[in-house]
């Protein structure tokens, strides 16, 4: 064990001895790991909002065959019918207005909700600046998600105009649901009138059921209730709704997997390339090590240590840069009125660190074999 530790010290000295080579490798690995971490952060954010868990109890009632909030129009009076269906715990009508339905970053989303039910439907919402009562009393008031407010530099008391509406910022809220942090909550009647839809029309109903097992049954009951109505509904669990509605966004994020794979290959190629160069440039030195008592295994281990140190340090830089970037920029991917908050995650950073460690070791194996398998005498004779 002691010997192994001593080898790590020697490997560190070797890495520091060839600073230019080490810095170039480190920067190359950092670029690749920046990309890998970014891709994984996107993938994980998508997974969180689309993969159903046993604690999911939310349904979304949308108009049948509609995918954009601009076209899903449901009568608000459906509320009382939905509420009366057994298993339904809470219902909230929501009007959604976005600047564009297309998939892009930084989409502006307004959610119009009845002021009296916002907090009862979502008790985890917390107003961190400004006042909830101000929002309740002023018809053009908006409660901004903290990321939405931070991106636009808005504070309570400010006014801003977007999507053809002018609103007054009553407060900034935070919520454990990432989507809430990226939208602006306004009064339902205000949004209905400002967006020319008129009173009595909403985009969707969000329904909470009593338990996860009731999701399918209640969804069927809601759709059955309105099947003979002029406007039929399509009710799906919230995460399935997201997966089916934000198709463009999902396809775009799915494509980034290839970039992640490219980044992984780049790490292997970079570390492998550097170690082969090291092995070729140190033939005589490795032979001398062997004559003074180092075994072939030690020489191989030394190469692996160097590869691991280079990979890990580059990986750390890349992962930290990517996480800081997402922490600083707080991107929101939007599509069809749905928002995907892209936030740095510890589990993604840790997994990326494990990946870069394993890749560095993997990339070191061949160069380690090269370095340790040459005949000592022949290597010593090399000019």
């Amino acid at each position: 064990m002691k010997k192994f530790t001593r080898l790590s010290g020697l490997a560190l000295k070797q890495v520091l001895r060839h600073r230019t080579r080490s810095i170039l490798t480190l920067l190359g690995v950092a670029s690749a790991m920046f990309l890998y971490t970014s891709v994984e952060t996107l993938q994980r954010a998508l997974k969180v909002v689309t993969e159903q868990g046993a604690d999911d109890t939310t349904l979304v009632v949308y108009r049948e065959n509609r995918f954009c909030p601009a076209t899903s129009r449901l009568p608000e009076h459906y509320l009382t019918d939905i509420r009366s269906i057994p298993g339904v715990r809470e219902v909230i009508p929501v009007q959604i207005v976005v600047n564009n339905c297309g998939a892009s970053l930084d989409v502006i989303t307004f959610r119009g909700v009845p002021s009296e039910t916002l907090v009862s439907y979502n008790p985890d919402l917390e107003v961190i600046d400004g006042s909830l009562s101000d929002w309740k009393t002023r018809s053009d008031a908006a409660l901004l998600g903290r990321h939405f407010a931070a991106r636009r530099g808005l504070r309570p008391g400010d006014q801003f105009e977007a999507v053809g509406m002018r609103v007054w910022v009553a407060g900034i809220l935070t919520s454990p649901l990432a989507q809430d942090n990226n939208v602006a909550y306004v009064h339902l009647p205000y949004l209905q009138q400002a967006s020319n839809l008129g009173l009595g029309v909403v985009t969707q109903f969000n329904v909470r059921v009593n338990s996860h097992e009731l999701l399918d049954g209640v969804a069927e009951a809601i759709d059955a209730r309105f099947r003979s109505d002029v406007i039929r509904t399509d009710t799906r669990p919230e995460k399935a709704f997201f997966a089916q509605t934000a198709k463009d966004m999902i396809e775009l994020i799915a494509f980034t997997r290839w970039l992640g794979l490219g980044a992984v290959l780049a790490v292997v190629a970079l570390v492998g390339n550097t170690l082969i160069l090291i092995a070729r440039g140190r033939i005589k030195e490795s032979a001398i090590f062997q004559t003074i008592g180092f075994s072939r295994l030690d020489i191989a281990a030394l190469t692996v240590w160097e590869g691991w140190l280079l990979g890990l340090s580059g990986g750390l830089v890349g992962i930290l840069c990517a996480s800081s970037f997402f922490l600083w920029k707080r991107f929101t991917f939007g599509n069809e009125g749905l928002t995907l908050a892209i936030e740095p995650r510890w589990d993604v950073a840790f997994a990326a660190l494990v990946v870069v460690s394993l890749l560095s070791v993997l990339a070191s194996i061949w160069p380690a074999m090269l370095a340790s398998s040459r005949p000592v005498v022949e290597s010593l004779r090399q000019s």
Partner: protein
Amino acid sequence: MKNQFIALPFSYVSRSLLREPIKLLQKVLGAALVVSMVLAAGMFNQGMDRMLRNTGDPDNVLFIGAGSEDSVERSEVAKRAEGLIAGGVRGIESRMNLPSVSGEVQYMGMVDFPDGARGQGLLRGVTPSVFQVRPSVRLLEGRFPGSGEILVGVSAHRALGVPESHLAVGKTLSFDDQEFRISGRFEAPATVLESEMWLLRGDLMTLTQRETLSAVLVRLADPAAFAAADLFSKQRLDLELVAIRESDYYAQLSRFYAPIRWMTWVTTAMIAMGAAFGGVNLLYAAFSARMKELATLQSIGFSRLSLFIALLQESLLSSLAGAWVSVLFAWFFLHGNQVFFSVGSFSLELTPSLLLAAVVAALALAVVGTLPPALRCLRTPLPTALRAS
């Protein structure tokens, strides 16, 4: 005595390159990766830009609902506005005594096929006057749709994710449980329109239970007549309209997608940086291994400048070979491919400007990659370099 500049023969440069084929291959492939990324990102961004630019005609004015300037899909325009605009705006182009005014409904909907396939596509409710305001549209086969019929763009199958045969003339598809027969196919080269499906406005309004139009498109006889259109929208406050040039609308849409384009460049930069760092490392090792050889050349009369030029020529050759590989890759595997994006489908094209970008990227890679290792190698004092192992 001042050293006379004697250039190393080109045969030395080419022989040096071919001395280590594996290293040469590494250099060529590294350069090819970087240039391919530049080409791919450039093709994507140019394709998207071209599509949005071509769709917006500066002679056309779009009347959309106030507050919906960002997206026609959520715009609401009173149906009567179409007639009022035709009669109230001066300078509208007229063909066969018919004003070029087209009130349209735009709708993103799910379409079903008899074999069970489903796809989401953009439906546009139109009247025959649509051809007056969109001169780039050409009917390839079939005819303008009647009631219960639909006209499809040549790229609509890509948007729907179905085989092209599903949208052949005479086939059927369903929207909102209503069957439509395909009456014809149209093209509108390099525009978003090619990914759409057009049906009679009345049919679409009935099915979607919509009483308003999405927008009214007007073709002006003279682009300067836009002022009259703008004045009309400002005078008729009751209609709650905004007049915007169609080209400006699509330019705005292009700005909306700017972050996506920006992402592609960042990705390219990251991959290029990784490859470039690896390449520089390789060159450091390659030049260091030849230190003694370069010192010998110096001692027999070749100046440092001529040696530097020879090393630069080696890098330029390998980088340009990499650029050729990437151009061939782009031509055979990317050029002509269709990319479908939210706003429509566009084709990837290898344009002359991208070819120039590929050459510039390869040259930059060669120069930037050669400078530090070559300078380090050539700045070593001659006695030290000659003793190098």
